[in-house]
């Protein structure tokens, strides 16, 4: 089953050089994270050492080597959001969703909270994104609104 999806990805890129990042991006889109078996499959097909894939995957913030939650909450920690107080909201979310200390995903795998440097919507800071839906001018009182989005 993995192979079928991998082959689809390979067919898209195959002919051109320099597509490790694009392949990893598609891999993550298909599987939710960077799977070891998938990396090994591509490594063999393309005759590129797996270490090259991991070198790239660990360099960029976008790639995850572990499965993530079913729902993703992104909290923006850019300058404007920071000045307007995004940190207390993230803490409150973590508390509400019982995210274990030191981790970013709830124990049942239902939700992952991540923070990013800037989503570029600073004029409506602080900004949160719940499964692609943008919440602007967020306040502590409105935290339940975001939690409601999570199925």
């Amino acid at each position: 089953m993995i192979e079928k999806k991998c082959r689809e990805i390979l067919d898209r890129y195959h002919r051109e050089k320099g597509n490790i990042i694009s392949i990893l991006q598609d891999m993550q889109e298909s599987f939710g994270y960077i799977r070891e078996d998938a990396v090994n499959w591509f490594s063999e097909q393309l005759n590129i050492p797996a270490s090259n894939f991991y070198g790239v995957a660990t360099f960029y913030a976008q790639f995850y080597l572990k499965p993530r939650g079913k729902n993703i909450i992104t909290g923006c920690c850019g300058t404007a959001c920071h000045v307007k107080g995004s940190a207390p909201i993230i803490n409150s979310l973590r508390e509400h969703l019982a995210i274990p200390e030191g981790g970013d995903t709830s124990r049942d795998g239902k939700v992952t909270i991540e923070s990013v440097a800037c989503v570029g919507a600073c004029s409506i800071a602080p900004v949160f994104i719940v499964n692609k839906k943008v919440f602007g001018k967020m306040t502590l009182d409105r935290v339940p609104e975001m939690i409601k989005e999570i199925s």
Partner: protein
Amino acid sequence: MNNNGLEGLVIKVCVGTGGLAAGSQEVIDEFNKTLAARKVRAAVRKKCVSKTGCRGFCAKDVLVDVVRNGKSFTYQLVSPDKVSRIVDEHIISGNPVEEWLVGPDYHTFHSKQTKILLQQCGQIDPEDIRSYIDIGGYKAAKKALSLDPFEVIEEVRASGLRGRGGAGFLTGLKWEFCKMSGGTPKYIICNADEGDPGAFMDRSIIEGNPHSVIEGMIIGAHAIGAEKGYIYIRAEYPLAVDRLRTALSQARAKKFLGKKIFNSRMNFDIEIKLGAGAFVCGESTALMRSIEGKRGTPRPTPPRSVNKGLWGRPTALNNVETLANIPIIMNRGAGWFASIGTKKNTGTKLFALTGKVKNTGLIEVPMGISLKEIIYDIGGGMEDKNRRFKAVQTGGPSGGCIPASYLNMPVDYESLVNIGSMMGSGGMVVMDDTTCMVEMARFFLTFTENESCGKCVPCRVGTKRMLEVLTRITEGRGKEGDIDLLTELGTDIRLSSLCGLGQSAPNPVLSTINFFREEYEAHIKDGICPARACKSLRRYAVDAELCRMCGKCFRVCPSGAVVWEKKQKAVIDKEKCIKCGACYDACPFGSIL
């Protein structure tokens, strides 16, 4: 129904990220539904609800323009429940709903601006190439292709356009170097990896007018002799990526991209490359390695990218805003462009005005305008009237904080660098007296330390050491001599780092030490945070005069440090207090000190 006044009815709804977050899609749906129900749609017989890009005043989104009978009115803060009244009273009966129209602050917000790039953004439907062609789009590319490449380069050079990505290198000169450089094929790259926290100019241009960037790239490709272009864009901007994909396929269908474009002999196409979340990839050599599918680490220069860039070939790398200016220069002439702004800083610049200012949003101003005009006239002053302006931060994590005494300074590349900040790509974050400057410097250092690629030692280790010192100062563990240590470290990192990230990483620290040294000293010597922002330095106590004995502080305290009983004033046990600040936030009477 009477069709009078409905000829040419247009309803424009802003669909930038700001607008969509405020619910503009719901507003559009509601307009379509209501217009159909009131049979207006049948009367005007065409699609009259259109989408536009960001008008900049995102604080008042959803913004809706209603053009009826040739007159345009703008509504602010529109929500779906307001739609039916606008349709009934304004569109059908011709009486605009006065109380929902934009107020005077909307007009002051715009009056000091010079809208050239943003004017188009608010006018056209970004998802429809015809809408761009209708206002003269792709004429400039057609014209450029009929000229000799050197004529195009000369025009851009004469306009004085400088790179909007931060450093301000003359665009015409860069193209000339690339044109003159031996080796084929050549590449042109659009840098849309807008990684500065606090900046969103490039996102707004691409979301609002993606074709202007594509047209700029076609002209650039002709000038330098490239057949392939890349747009390197952040994956964090999904809407901008979608709009670009749509725009590229529409341009291909019109034969503006592909083989023999515009019926000339030129072949040119553009590919999108998604960034994978690394700030250092905004640096030119790192960006090119990332397009090559490698770890995005920079390399020493020279050789410069114009000689050995992508795949070792001559490459011109231009920022989104720079490229969007190119068609305008070709259409209206270098002389016209050079007449805007100042002698060495021509044209306009977009800024993302955010933070503790009343009117936040995207603004476009002539180069050389003063900070005061931006913050007080366009921005409307402080968000909270009782707060004092303290500093404005420009240039993101590579820039510095500018204090009130420099408010009359003109905003141009040189002036900003002279006082230890920089233009950067154009983020402008306003801070009031509740922002602690040491904490701000620590915030930026956390960012650069985290984003340092690790290739060179000064940046990798130096930023880490600086962050440790800053953290201990904000936690009240600062030592005598820490300020000197930070200055020394900062200067060394600036001089010895490999790329722009490391060279500019100490700027936020050095500029805050320069202008707000007393705040650092207060933290270290007196154990006080003057802005009351650093939690570990707060000493919580109850002002017995103000306490109304409500017990709210007692209930929120997580560590049992508040001693309170009914009809008794609260007291805080300093031994048990963990300085979380919950009591301070909970007290309705301001009695917690």
